[in-house]
């Protein structure tokens, strides 16, 4: 530890931290542009100058290590002069277009120019002009505004793992870009917009849309992948205008995947905004009462079942469960992809290591998952671990994938998995030598005929290779959507019998085997195949439009909040179910959100707490399934089109543009 005095405040900081960090520990704010705590130190903007006693010149605090007994001054005349000078240089080539700049109001340069700049410019010469670069459909560039802090270059190289951005040419002519024009091939490109301290990289869909002070900000959770990214939903006049990540070191650090960030325009298109009832083979607009009456008639005396989809909140799921129980049905299902998940124990279907736990792992085996497409933020965490520690990664799945980190391709499918269960595969040595080995099993690998066997085999690999320890649980199932874990916690695993006569689809696609003549209710926000098959359609609320509970792949229980009201007559799903129960004659016993949540905690106590805490594994008995039954077939991820993987993104124009850019062959 080193004792440092910052403006007379004595702080103790670990050896090797920078002066800037010591100043922050003392509660002093240091202006900066290039420094970012999650990126490497560049030290090129010089804004973080401080004075150190006995040093002849001001020093760049972000790149200067502390020494014991150091006396730092952050507000001396030398520092103020230095910063004013740096700011003057930065502003020489920066255009004065704040009034038309999308960064205006949330711009580091604007804020710091107010605090540290001088009142007028002394610069009379011509400013330099830089051609704008094309970086893809999501990031808009106005390169005149670039102050060359190189945060974007470091983010792309270090965090996203796609070294495609760079600083070409030199001095006055230095430019940030890809040199050879191309769209950035990363699923994390939106983060470039966040880390850019000026308006050089801004959001293309959000261009000229709004000012930050006009927006109503609501803390919520992203559900378009299973990471459970903490987000802030910015809305104005009942319309979501953008979604930004919030910092949560246990989940997403401060990053966010592009689908979660940009797909929200799908919430305004192809929405179900009123109830519909099928009469004589055609759907007709109806009132809520008519719809509920039709359901009561359609369900009367029939064998019922309920299916929930991938983007359904826990409150709606528990209300549906109770409604079905009231109607005498226990046929509940949520695994519409056919994943053979064993929900008898929670650690069979969650990411037990935790996302932050990845940073403790020293060997990783990925089975049948492409984390880069299924959970880009978790993939960035894996990359961080591999880059900092050289953690070996074994991969079973398609050959030649670019996961953004080096991985040892072990094989394509079942054959390799069986070899690992046997214990004499070369990667077994690596796993056995590790102290904290972990594996990530993709949900896609379970969605096949031998899914149960794959699950059992993966568990056996975990158990036999030291992944299941009293203080370390290295078995992880990676889900794909934010609503996939909560229904597993609520017992939506009893299955739908083939002779079901009435079916309640809550945001779910109709199962392949819906019998002819079955009465189908579809409740949800986007109508795809489910709505087309439905006899009654009930409009529901999307994730930005309700106060709801979501469970991420770790099993972490998080609350999303209402940012805008649902369109038209659509209502929060549990309220729809509550209203329907009245007409169906099995009145649900809750009238408030608190009461629903109390009921949630009653059904499964995890909903009363945080849902996830670092845990070990003491019971190594595996899930049902015979590991020997694994077929030799290759594993294939069931997310091939990252940009259009769910109903919201399929309705999104932005995501359609991304699909056209990145997957020209897949776009319709």
């Amino acid at each position, binding site marked *: 530890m080193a004792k440092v005095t910052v403006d007379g405040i004595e702080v103790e900081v670990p050896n090797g931290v920078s002066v800037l960090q010591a100043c922050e520990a003392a509660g002093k704010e240091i202006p900066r542009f290039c420094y970012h705590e999650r990126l490497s130190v560049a030290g090129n903007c010089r804004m973080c100058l401080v004075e150190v006693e006995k040093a002849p010149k001001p020093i760049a605090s972000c790149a200067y290590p502390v020494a014991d007994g150091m006396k730092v001054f952050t507000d001396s005349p030398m520092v103020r002069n230095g910063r004013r000078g740096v700011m003057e240089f930065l502003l020489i080539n920066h255009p004065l277009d704040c009034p038309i700049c999308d960064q205006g109001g949330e711009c580091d340069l604007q804020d710091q120019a107010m605090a540290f700049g001088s009142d007028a410019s002394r610069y009379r010469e011509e400013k330099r002009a830089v051609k704008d670069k094309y970086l893809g459909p999501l990031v808009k560039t106005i390169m005149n505004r670039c102050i060359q802090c190189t945060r974007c270059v470091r983010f792309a190289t270090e965090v996203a793992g796609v*070294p495609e951005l760079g600083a070409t040419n030199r001095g006055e*002519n230095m430019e940030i870009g890809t*040199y050879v024009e191309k769209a950035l091939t990363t699923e994390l490109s939106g983060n470039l917009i966040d880390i850019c301290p000026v308006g050089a990289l801004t959001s293309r869909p959000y261009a000229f849309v709004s000012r930050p002070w006009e927006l109503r900000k609501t803390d919520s959770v992203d559900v378009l992948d299973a990471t459970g990214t903490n987000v802030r939903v910015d809305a104005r006049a009942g319309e979501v205008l953008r979604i930004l990540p919030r910092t949560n070191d246990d989940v997403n650090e401060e990053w966010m995947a592009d689908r979660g960030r940009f797909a929200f325009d799908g919430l305004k298109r192809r929405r179900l905004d009123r109830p519909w009832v099928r009469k004589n083979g055609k759907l007709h607009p109806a009132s809520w009462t008519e719809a509920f009456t039709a359901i009561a008639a359609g369900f009367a005396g029939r064998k019922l079942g309920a299916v929930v989809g991938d983007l359904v909140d826990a409150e709606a799921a528990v209300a549906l469960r109770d409604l079905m129980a009231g109607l005498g049905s226990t046929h509940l299902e949520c695994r519409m992809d056919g994943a053979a998940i064993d929900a008898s124990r929670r650690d069979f279907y969650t990411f037990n290591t935790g996302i932050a736990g990845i940073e403790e792992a020293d060997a990783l085996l990925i089975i049948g998952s492409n984390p880069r497409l299924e959970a880009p933020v978790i993939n960035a965490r894996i990359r961080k671990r591999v880059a900092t520690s050289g953690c070996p990664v074994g991969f079973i799945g398609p050959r030649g994938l670019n996961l953004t980190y080096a991985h040892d391709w072990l094989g394509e499918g079942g054959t390799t998995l069986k070899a690992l269960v046997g214990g004499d595969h070369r990667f077994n040595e690596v796993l056995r030598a590790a102290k904290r080995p972990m594996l990530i099993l993709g949900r896609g690998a379970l969605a096949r005929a031998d899914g149960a066997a794959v699950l059992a085999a993966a568990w056996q690999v975990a158990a036999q290779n030291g992944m299941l320890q009293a203080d370390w649980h290295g078995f992880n199932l990676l889900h794909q959507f934010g609503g996939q874990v909560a229904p597993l916690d609520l017992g939506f695993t009893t299955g739908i019998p083939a002779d079901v006569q009435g079916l309640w689809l809550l945001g779910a696609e109709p199962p392949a085997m819906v019998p002819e003549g079955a009465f189908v209710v579809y409740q949800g926000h986007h109508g795809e195949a489910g709505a087309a098959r439905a006899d009654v359609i009930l409009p529901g609320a999307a994730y930005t439009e309700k106060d709801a509970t979501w469970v991420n792949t770790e099993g972490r229980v998080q609350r999303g909040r209402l940012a805008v009201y649902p369109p038209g007559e659509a209502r929060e799903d549990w309220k729809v179910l509550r209203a329907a129960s009245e007409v169906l004659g099995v009145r649900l016993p809750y009238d408030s959100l608190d009461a629903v949540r109390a009921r949630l905690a009653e059904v499964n106590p995890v909903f009363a707490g945080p849902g996830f805490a670092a845990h070990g594994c003491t019971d190594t008995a595996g899930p049902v399934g015979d590991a020997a039954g694994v077929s030799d077939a290759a594993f294939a991820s069931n997310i091939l089109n990252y940009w259009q993987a769910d109903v919201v993104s399929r309705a999104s124009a932005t995501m359609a543009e991304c699909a056209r850019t990145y997957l020209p062959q897949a776009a319709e």
Partner: protein
Amino acid sequence: MVAEMSTGTEFPQPESFSFDEESLKAIDTIVKRYPPGKQASAVIPLLYVVQRQMKRQTGSAWVPNKGMDAVAERLGMAPIRVYEVATFYFMFNMRPIGKFHLQVCGTTPCWLRGSDEVARACREAGKVGGYGQTSEDGLFTMTEVECLGGCVNAPILQVDDDYYEDMDYESTVKLIEALRRGERPAPGSVIGRQTSAPEGGPLTLLDVPGE
């Protein structure tokens, strides 16, 4: 003012580039100089290899994008890292140049000794419009370079890899004409100076002690 920097798109780029035998031999020697895992250090010498190969093959010493990609692949680097290096250094021509690269030193000692005249001679005899331009016959490209480190024999005109020293207007015209005829005059001082000794011969250390 939009900077006149190349982005590699304003002129045709070759569709492919692969190292020829001579280059491959040179690369093997160069890469061996660096310890394993540090091969990226060889990026600058390899870019020279690309530039020389282009000179051999097309008569124009420049580095095309595909050439940089080939370097990146050979050294296991991301292509953008090679682009950054290549565009940073002035010595790599990012666009095609003429057969002869006339590099006029314009730094203070050369300028005081008459580099403006050398440049005028290049423009007039070589029929080049100015710095950064190529003559219509495709023979000469003129570039103003910073100090070539030959200040004692200023002004210097570097043609490709050769230094011609103690230049003035007439000697520059003669040199350019010789190049045009296909001759390659011996590099070095054009006034017969011995290396960087004083003009007209040594002035000190004339007697050898003990003789």
